[in-house]
Structure formats: C-alpha cells, structure tokens
C-alpha cells in the first residue's frame, strides 16, 4: 500500500490573551493511496485544526510547534509541507490536496458566479486555455450532478440551495484530481435526505473518476463513518486515542472515550441500557382518556416581504391544515427536514406565534383566539425549551435572577420560598447550587441547556414544547441531557411535544411521532409502528437516509432533488415532486391531502395510504 501523507508528531497551539492553548498534542497518522480515513471526535477535539494544519490555513494566532507533514505529490516527490513557503504551498493547495468545508452557506464567494469560482482553480493549476477550462468546468458540474450546468455556471451562490452549493464545493475540490481531499463535516449542516444524496455522490465519484484519491473525512457522525470509511482515527482533547479498521474499532473499542462515544449513540443505548428509559414498570402510563392538547385544522402563513410600495399576496405556507392531539403524560415527537414547519407548529401551539387559522384546545379550553394578556395565565402551564440555550438566556443576569423572575411575575411564591424552590430545581437538573450566582457565559453548552430546562420547569408547567433541545450538543452530552429530560418527565408529570430532526433521538424519547413535510403532517404513529412499518413514502425515505451504525444496510431509498419552496408548494401530495415511487394518481397533483387512520393510532396521508 502506498502511503501518500504522513503526519508525524504534530503539535499545534493557539496564542491568546490568556497565554497559549494546546490544540494538537503530538499526533501522528498516515493516509494510504485511495483510502477513506475518517476522523471523529467531539467538538473542540482538534479535528479542524488538524485539517487546517495540513492545508496551511491555520488562523494567524495559531502556530505549529513541532512535527512533520510529508506528502508524496503528483510528481512523486516527497515534500514536507510544513517547510514550504506560502508561495510553494499554493502550488499544492487545490492541486495535490483540496478541501471541502463544513459551511455550504458561506464558503463560496457571493460576488462571483459559481462557474468563475470553479474555472479559477483550474486555471490556477493547469496550463490550459480559458475555453478549455470552461469546458472542464461544465463537465465537473455535470459530474456532481447539477442539472443544467451551463445555466447554473452563470448563477451566484445565493441562487443555489445548500446541497447544490456543497456540490459546487466538491467540484472545486475535484477539479485538479488531487491526491487527497479533506472533507471537514461536509454534510452536517444539511438535511438527512440531502446528506444521503451527497454521500452517495461522493462515493460514486470516489469509485470512478478519482479512484486513486484518498479522502480524509472529518465527522462526528459515527453512522457515516460506518458507511464510508476504511479506517478511523478517534481524537480526544487534541490527541489521537484510537486508530484502526472501522469494523475493529466499532466492535472492539479500546479507549474509554471511544466506548463512551459508541454507547452514547441513542440507538445503542436502548440495548446497552445506558439510558434509563423503557424500564417498563417504572414508566408513567399515558392516560388514554385525558387529552391535554388538541389542535384542529391549524394553519400558519407568513406574508412574503416585498419592499415598501407593493403589498405582496404571496405567503410562506409554514403550517398547513394540521390536526392532532396529545394525551396526558404522552410525548409527541415532531420530525422533518429543515423548513418543514416543526418549530412554527411548536411556537403556534403555545402561541408564541399567532396561528392564521384553526383551533387549539388546551385542557378543553379554546386558546386559539386568546390575546397575549389572556395567555399569561395559560403560559404558566405551557412552556418552551429552545435549541440554542445561550441565545435564550439573558447574558447580564445571573442564573438565580433568570429563574426567579417568572415566579415573582406570576406571584406564585414569596421570595424566600422561591429561592428554596429554585435550589431544588437546580439540583434536579443536575447542577451544583453555586451555579445560581454565575452568569450564562460561565457554563458549557450542556450545562446551559440544563439551565434552559430549569427555566422551563420553575412554573410547574403541565405541558412543554422542546424545540431541538439537544441538537446543539455533542453526542455524549446529548445522552446526559436526554436522560435528564426522561427523568424529569416522570418527576414533574409532564406532557411534551419534542421537536427534532434526529430520528434516533425521537425513537428513544417519544411515544408517538408526527412526520412533517412542507407544512403538512404526512404520518402519525406510535414510535414502534413508525419505525418498523412506515406507511408514507416520505417517512420511508427519511428513515432510510439516516446512516446506521448497526444493522445491515438495506438498499437506500434516495430522494431526488431539493425541497420545493414553501411559497409555492406542489399541488396535491406535497411530496410528489421528490417521491421515489409515486402512484399513478399522484402525478397529476389533484388529490386532496388529509390524514386517515389505517390502524388504531396510525394515521397516514390519504393519497399515500391509497397508492401503497
């Protein structure tokens, strides 16, 4: 096996006002020709710093203390990258080693056409004419499966969706057929269905035109590692703690961090009993008779801004004709890709947004038309937990003030009483009492989310909408927070709506799931039903798009194309433009949508129920 890159004893540090901070500690690894090497580790473990060290793109305050990075370049010469001047390094960047970055939204120049951005790298490294380069560019766009390349080449990045932009990034990386492509979390900012498309594309290219190119694939998603990589390196706090063939590492992790990482995956935890749920006798029973929340034909539409002279009559159709109910002590999960309307639905239910039409019954009280003033009393019973714990906390208030405020506003207790009560809650969410005197920035992400949870609990609500409460956290922290929520659900007797785009989290946490697509709920079913026998085509595709760590890989159902605009959604079944196997009746787009019950508790959109 030919080794193309050898990193030895690399140490990198950052200089800051507080002194220097070690980001990489003496790491060594190598990459062989044509292999896919995965680099995993939690946020801040040094994955990006490793790739930027190789690319020579470290920020100004970073410096390499020691080490060597040897590359066998295209001319078969061995070069030590770290000894190169910036000019010499430029001959390698984009040519021998190229990179795909994490942020598809911001990593292309907004003022250059995408065609120009691709041609640029070709002309930079190849001595060919402009017309020739232009032709190569069009070919590349075709290779990454961008429809209508000649037209697209003339467009600007903001005219493309995130998935398309990432395809453009990939074509830039491929342009000079490099020896090594570094892909730093190339799909984590994208929806699962788009992620599945891109990963498949990447592998297809890997196995065809760039078969000799190696890929260093950085990710925190162990499912992807399992699907794509030959070997894996695990990083922890700037050190490589484990390295080996993917199968060996997964089956037999040596380092405790790796073991933790693997076991903290929600799908594993069910078996390993790391998580406390599904201990059936302890579980609170869902009360079948008491419906806490019932919504009927709910709509929420946002007017499209159009500048000041013209009133627009177009609307973003964020929530379309949704009816569902939640029973006491039940957890209803909402899943769907970004833009499907999950958060809008959640906010409309507790009336942080005023719904456009429809009814909301909370404890049999129709609150849909309540004014903000009337809602104040209800809010005490309905709370929300947000995705970004930091943004939702006031940075200038210490935790005690943040938590005590709602109690005093609602006049629930006297101040002394309230303080004791808050101490109890802070203890319940697993934080030390001293935290109360501290400010939000002094906490880690996971701790902040605990504070967010505590804040939602202080008013002793019956009902909580949790909007992606763990998405911003690392997998291992996710598990802790989920366990906590699970415990609190019982102690506080909560009914919940739990929003997440992560199916494994939903599977672990919810009793019942509603799948959303373009503002519609297309399927509702008890968790086990939904995961084992999904009925709707979209649900099936969504389930299949998720990379699985365990279990045999079934043939993937790939969804074509991008999500249509919610301003002009397709008529009839909203999913028909991307449906992998539409029925004959679906194509015309003149079937009405609406849920029907196919089995007790299992509701599916009627068009799909009929054609499958």
């Amino acid at each position, binding site marked *: 096996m030919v080794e193309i890159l050898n990193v030895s004893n690399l140490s990198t540090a950052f200089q800051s006002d507080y002194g220097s901070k070690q980001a990489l500690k003496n790491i060594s690894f190598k990459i062989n020709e044509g292999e896919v090497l995965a680099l995993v580790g939690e946020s801040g473990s040094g994955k990006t710093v490793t790739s930027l060290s190789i*690319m020579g*793109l470290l920020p100004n305050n970073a410096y390499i203390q020691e080490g060597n990075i040897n590359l066998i370049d295209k001319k078969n010469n061995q070069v030590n990258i770290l000894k190169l001047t*910036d*000019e010499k*390094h*430029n*001959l*390698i*960047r*984009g*040519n021998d080693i*190229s*990179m795909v*970055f994490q*942020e598809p939204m*911001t*990593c*292309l*120049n*907004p*003022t*250059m056409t995408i065609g120009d951005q691709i041609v*640029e*790298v070709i002309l*930079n*490294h190849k001595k060919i004419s402009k017309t020739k380069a232009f032709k190569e560019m069009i070919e590349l766009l075709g290779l990454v499966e961008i429809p209508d390349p000649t037209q697209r080449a003339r467009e*600007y990045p*903001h*005219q493309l969706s995130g998935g398309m932009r990432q395809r453009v*990034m990939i074509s*830039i990386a491929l342009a000079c057929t490099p020896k090594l492509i570094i892909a730093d979390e190339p799909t984590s900012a994208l929806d699962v269905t788009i992620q599945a498309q891109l990963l498949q594309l990447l592998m297809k290219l890997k196995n065809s035109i760039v078969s000799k190119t190696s890929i260093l694939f950085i990710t925190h998603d162990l499912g992807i590692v399992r699907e794509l990589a030959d070997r894996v390196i695990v990083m922890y706090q700037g050190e490589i703690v484990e390295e080996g063939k993917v199968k060996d590492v997964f089956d037999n992790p040596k380092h405790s961090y790796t073991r933790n990482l693997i076991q903290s995956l929600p799908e594993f935890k069910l078996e390993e009993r790391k998580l406390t749920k599904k201990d059936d006798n302890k579980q609170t029973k869902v009360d079948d008779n008491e419906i806490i929340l019932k919504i009927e034909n709910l709509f929420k539409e946002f007017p499209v801004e*159009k*500048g000041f*002279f*013209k009133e627009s009559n177009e609307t973003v159709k964020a929530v379309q004709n949704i009816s569902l109910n939640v029973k006491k002590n039940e957890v209803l999960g909402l899943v769907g890709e970004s833009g499907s309307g999950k958060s809008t639905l959640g906010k409309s239910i507790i009336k942080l947004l005023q719904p456009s039409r429809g009814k909301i019954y909370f404890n049999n009280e129709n609150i849909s038309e309540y004014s903000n003033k009337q809602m104040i009393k209800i809010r005490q019973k309905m709370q929300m937990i947000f995705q970004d714990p930091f943004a939702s906390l006031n940075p200038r208030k210490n935790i005690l003030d943040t938590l005590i405020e709602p109690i005093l506003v609602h006049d629930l207790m006297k101040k002394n009483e309230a303080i004791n009560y808050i101490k109890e809650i802070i203890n319940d969410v697993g934080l030390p009492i001293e935290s109360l005197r501290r400010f939000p920035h002094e906490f880690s992400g996971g701790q902040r989310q605990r504070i967010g949870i505590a804040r939602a609990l202080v008013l002793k609500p019956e009902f909580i909408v949790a909007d992606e409460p763990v998405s911003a956290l690392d997998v291992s922290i996710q598990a802790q927070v989920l366990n906590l929520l699970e415990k609190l659900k019982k102690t506080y007797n909560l009914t919940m709506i739990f929003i997440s785009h992560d199916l494994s989290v939903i599977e672990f946490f919810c009793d019942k799931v509603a799948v959303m697509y373009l503002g519609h709920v297309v399927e509702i079913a008890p968790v086990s039903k939904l995961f084992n026998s999904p009925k709707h085509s979209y649900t099936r595709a969504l389930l299949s798009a998720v990379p699985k760590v365990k279990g045999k890989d079934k043939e993937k159902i790939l969804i074509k194309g991008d999500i249509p605009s919610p301003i002009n959604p397709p008529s009839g079944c909203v999913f028909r433009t991307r449906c992998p196997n539409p029925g004959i009746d679906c194509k015309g787009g003149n079937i009405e949508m609406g849920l029907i019950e196919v089995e007790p508790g299992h509701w599916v959109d009627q068009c799909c129920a009929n054609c499958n």
Partner: protein
Amino acid sequence: MNFFIKKLLIVIPTLYIAWTVVFVTLNIIPGDPVNLMLGGRPASDEVRENVRKNLGLDKPVFERYTSFLINATKGDLGKSYLTRQPVTTMIKENMMPTIELSIGGLIFGVFFGVFFGIFAGTKPNSMRDTFSMIIALCGISLPSFWIGMMLIYIFGTTLGWVPIVGEGFVSLILPSITVGLFFAGGMARLTRSSLVDVLNQDYIRTARSKGISKYRIVLRHSLRNAMIPPVTLLGIQFGLLITGAVITEEVFARPGLGQLLLQAILAKDIPLVQALVVYMTAVYIFLNLIVDFTYGIIDPRIRLERNRG
C-alpha cells in the same frame, strides 16, 4: 415595481423638502432685501416700492414660495441683486472649475483612502497598519485648509514642483489633494475595517484552499465584497466634497462656485445664495442616487433583490 422608478419617486419629494428648507431659512433671515439691494443708499418710498414689485416681494409669502418651487423646477432662479444677471448664467460660468476640482478631489480621496485601507487591512495589527491608521487619523482631524496651505508652502513655494496658481491640469493637483483629504481618512478607515472583516470570511478560506496567490485573493475575492460600506460612506460624504471644494477654492484663490457662494453670502445676495444651495442639494441627491445604483453592480445579491422587487 421597478427599483429605479421607486428610487426616483423618493428623490422628488426629498428635493422639494430640501428646497423648502432653503427658502424658509433664507426668507426669515432678518434684514430687508431692498436695503441690501440699494446697498445702503437712501431712496424714496416710491423707489423702494418699485424695487419691491420688481423683485416680486410685494406678493404674499406663500405665493412667493410656490412660484419659487415652480421656477426652481424650471431651472429659473431669478436675478442676482448685485449684478442683475440671471443667477443661472453666473452659476454656469463658474461651474467648470468646481466640477474639475471635485472630480480631482474625488479621485485623490478615493485613491488615497482605498490605498491606505488595503495597505492596512491586509495586515491588521502590524506596523504598517498602525502607520496607515495614524495617517488616516491625521487626515480626519487636521483641518484640510491648513494641510492645503502646508502643501502650497512645501511643494509650491519651497520646492517649486507644482504651480500654485494658473490653468491646466498641473495646477489642479494640489487643490485636488486638499479636497480629497476631506474624506480620504474616513475612506481609509472604513476600507480597512471592512477588508479585515471580509478577509475573515469563510469564502476567503475557500479561495486560499484553491492555492490562489494573496494578491488575487485581495483583488478578486475581497475588494468587491469589502467596498459596499466605503461606497455608502462616499455617498454620505459628497457633502464634504462640496464643502471641501468651497474652502479649497478660497485657500488656492481659484475661481468657482465656492468663491461665488462666499461672495454671495458676504454681499447678502439672497437669490444667488438660494440658487447655489438649490443646485448643490440637487447635485448631492443626484450623486447619492448614482451611489445607490452602484451597489447593484458591486453585489449580485442586491441586484437580484431589486429585479425581483
């Protein structure tokens, strides 16, 4: 609606408001214009009445105001009290030198501003950054007319490199620099901060990952994105350009609208002052319109937004 039409619809009321302000301020200044016209000479009431009629001052204020607006729209702004010539003729005669000076100043100002901005912004927190920013600070805080006089003294009188007075291109250099200095400092600082910002963007990292030289990264990938705030500043500072020209003409004893305005003010020649201010506001608003349009050229996102709107 079309972006251009929308913009024009905003320009027209703006112009009328500006002109109203001009009219009101100049017509509440104490002092009888007839006295000013007569230059203090004694005159009979009959003569006074005649002059009054002649100037249209016998009409009620509101009527005078409306006819002022109508005439201003037609480009007719009355006759000078002093020379009795139509003010538009006087303005036309004096316009060219000022236009030359303003363009010269614009070029120098933008050149120095952008140059020092790039020089500093491509290497933040370095010696050259500090150096450039000190220069920019001097440009902002030292009075330009003083710098103008220093330039005359050094390059004109002492070194004799450039003529101080006279005609032609060369004599324009020192005055243009002086005018340019009015806004070069601000331009430099804004260009720098905007460039520093852009150079930290993700797409610059992408460009570097392609192995592109640093010059190309600055020129092709950064400048265009970095120029939006400086161009906006330029729009706001056209006023400074005009002020700069007025003061500089005085310092360099050049003919032009600045000199004319100064004389008109000293002589309390209200129609002339009024006309000059009317013209300058119109030019100012018009130049800002041009700036608005250039955004679209710089940034495709804005262009698209407009076409859609």
